[in-house]
C-alpha cells in the first residue's frame, strides 16, 4: 500500500519549517544558506508529491527548474559570502549590521 500524499506533504512542511527556523536561529551565513536549501528541498518534495497525486509530470519538471535555480543561487550566494567573509572568521550574519534604523 502506497503511503498517502498527506504524509509526504506533512514531512515537506516540517522540513520547510526546519529550514526556515534554521535560517532564523543560526548565525553562520553558510549554515543559513544551507537552511535555504532545506526549504527548497521541502518544496521539491511537495512538488513531486503533488505530481504523483495528480498524476502529472509537470510537477517534476518544476523540480528540475528549482534545482537549476538553486545551483545558480548557490554560485552567486557563495560568491558574495566569500567576498565578504574572506577575512571574517565565523562568517557571522550578525556582523553585517552596519545598515539599520
Amino acid at each position, binding site marked *: 500500500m502506497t503511503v498517502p500524499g498527506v504524509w509526504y*506533504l506533512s514531512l515537506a512542511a516540517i522540513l*520547510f519549517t526546519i*529550514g*526556515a527556523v534554521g*535560517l532564523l536561529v543560526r548565525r553562520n*551565513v553558510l549554515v*543559513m*544558506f544551507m537552511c*535555504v536549501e532545506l*526549504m*527548497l528541498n*521541502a*518544496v521539491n518534495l*511537495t*512538488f513531486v*508529491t*503533488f505530481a504523483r*497525486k*495528480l498524476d*502529472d509530470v*509537470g*510537477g517534476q*519538471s*518544476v523540480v528540475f*527548474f*528549482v534545482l537549476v*535555480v538553486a545551483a*545558480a*543561487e548557490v554560485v*552567486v*550566494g557563495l*560568491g*558574495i*559570502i566569500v*567576498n*565578504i567573509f574572506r577575512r571574517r572568521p565565523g562568517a557571522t*550574519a550578525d556582523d*553585517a*549590521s*552596519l*545598515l*539599520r*534604523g
Partner: protein
Amino acid sequence: MEAVIRVPNVEWRQLTPLLILIGGALVVLMAGTFFRGRKIAWLYSAMTVALGLGGLVASAFIWDRVGGPGGAPELAVAGALVIDGFSVFFTVVVCSAVVLGALLADGYLRREHMDAPEFYVLMLLSASGGILMAMANDLIVVFLGLEILSIALYVLAGYNRRRAESQEAAIKYFVLGAFSSAFFLYGVALVYGATGSTNLSWIGAFVRNDTATSGLLLGGIAFLIVGLGFKVAAVPFHMWTPDVYQGSPTPVTGFMAAAAKAAGFAALLRIFLTAFYTQPLLLDWRPIIWAVAVLTLIVGSVLAVVQSDVKRMLAYSSIGHAGYVFVGLQAATDRGLAGSLFYLLAYTFMILGSFAVITVIGRRGDGSHSIDSYKGLARSSPGLAFVFTVFLLAQAGIPLTSGFLAKFYVISAAVETHSYAIAIVAMLAAVIAAFVYLRLIVVMYMGADSEEAVTRAPMPVGTGLALGIALAFTVVVGFLPQVVFDFARDAAFLRLLI
C-alpha cells in the same frame, strides 16, 4: 521507445524585446571580454542605452498588434507567456529603467573606477528577468523571471566592493531574497497541488469551475503574496529595502527601485487579476492586499520621517510608493489596474531621476548621502537642486507633476470602489511623506549656509541626460497626461487567456 517531441512554436517576433536585452547582454559581455579599459567605458553604457531603446521600439511594434483598444492579446511559447498590452507596458517601464539606469551608471562607474561591461550585462539580464515576469503566464516562469532579476541584482548590489555597505547590502538582499523566494516557491507548489497546474490559464479555469474553497489554494496565495510582496517591498516584507537601497551603488538602487518593483508588481497584478480574479477568491485576497497597502503606506512614510540618510529616506519613501500601487490593486478594477500601471511608470522616472541626483551628490566613494551633504545645494548647483526639487515634489504628489496624477489615478480607483478608508489613509500618508521631501528641500534651499564653500559636484553627461529625460517626463506628463493615461488605460486590460 522512440518518442517524438513536438517542440511548440516559438513566437520570436513577440519576444523581440526580451531577445534584444538578452542577446545584447551577451554582446556586451563579449565586447567586454575583448575590449577593456576605462577609455571606452562609455561605449558599454551607450550600448546598453541603445539596447534599452531597442526594447522600447520593439515594444512599440508589439503594442500595435496586441495593445490598444483593438489589439488582441495572445499566448506565446506553449502558453508560458502572454503578449498583451500589459506585458508591453511593463516592457516599456523596465526598458526605460534600463535606459536611465545605464545613463547614470556610466558616470558612476567611471568615478568609482569600477569594471563596466559586467555591470551592464547584469543590468540587462536582470531587466530581461523583469520583462519575463511581466509576460509570464506560468508561475514557474514567474519564478524563473524573479530569480533572473534577483540574482543579477544581488551581484549588482554588491558591485562596489570598496564599500562595506555595498557588501552588506548584497548579503542581506541575497539571504532574504533566497528566503522569500523559497516561500514563493512553496506557494507555487501549494497552488499547483490545489489546481493541478502552474499555468495561470489553467489555474484560472480551474478556479472558475471549482467553487469549493480550497485551503491549499489559499495557503498558496498567501505564500505567493509573501514572495512577491518581498520583491515590491510591501510591509511587513519590506525590511531589507532600506538597508539594501542604502548600501547598493546608487545607480543600482535606482534601477532596483524602478525595475524590480515594477516587475514584482507586474507579476502580482497579473496573477491576482487574472488567475485569482473570481468573486469568492476576491473576498479572500482583497482584504490582505488592503491591509498590506495600509501598512505599507503608513510604515513607509512614517519611517522615512526619522531618517537622516537621503538614500535611506528615499528607500522608505519608495516603500510608501508601493503602497499606492497596492491601492490600485486593491480596487481590483480596470481603473485600479490602470492606476497602478500609471503609478509605476511615473514612479520609475521620478525615482530614477531622484537617484540620479543622489548619484551626483554621492561624490567619489558614493559615501556622502547624509542629509547634510545637501546643504546649500541650491547655491552651489541651482540647476541640480531645482531638478531634485521637482522630483521630490512629484513624489510628494504636488499637482502638475506625474506623481500627482499617479496618486490621483489610484485613489480615484479606490474611491470608485467605495474604499474610502484606504483613500484617506493614502492621502494622509502622502502628507506625512511630504514632510520628508520638504525637509530635503529645506536643506537644499534654506539650510544654514555652511562655512565651507560648497563645491560643485561634477555632473557627467550621461547623468545629465538621464536627469533631463526624467524631468521632462515628470513635468510634461504632469501637465499633459492624456497620452500616458491612454497608454495605461489600454494596457490595463488583463483577461485570462485560455
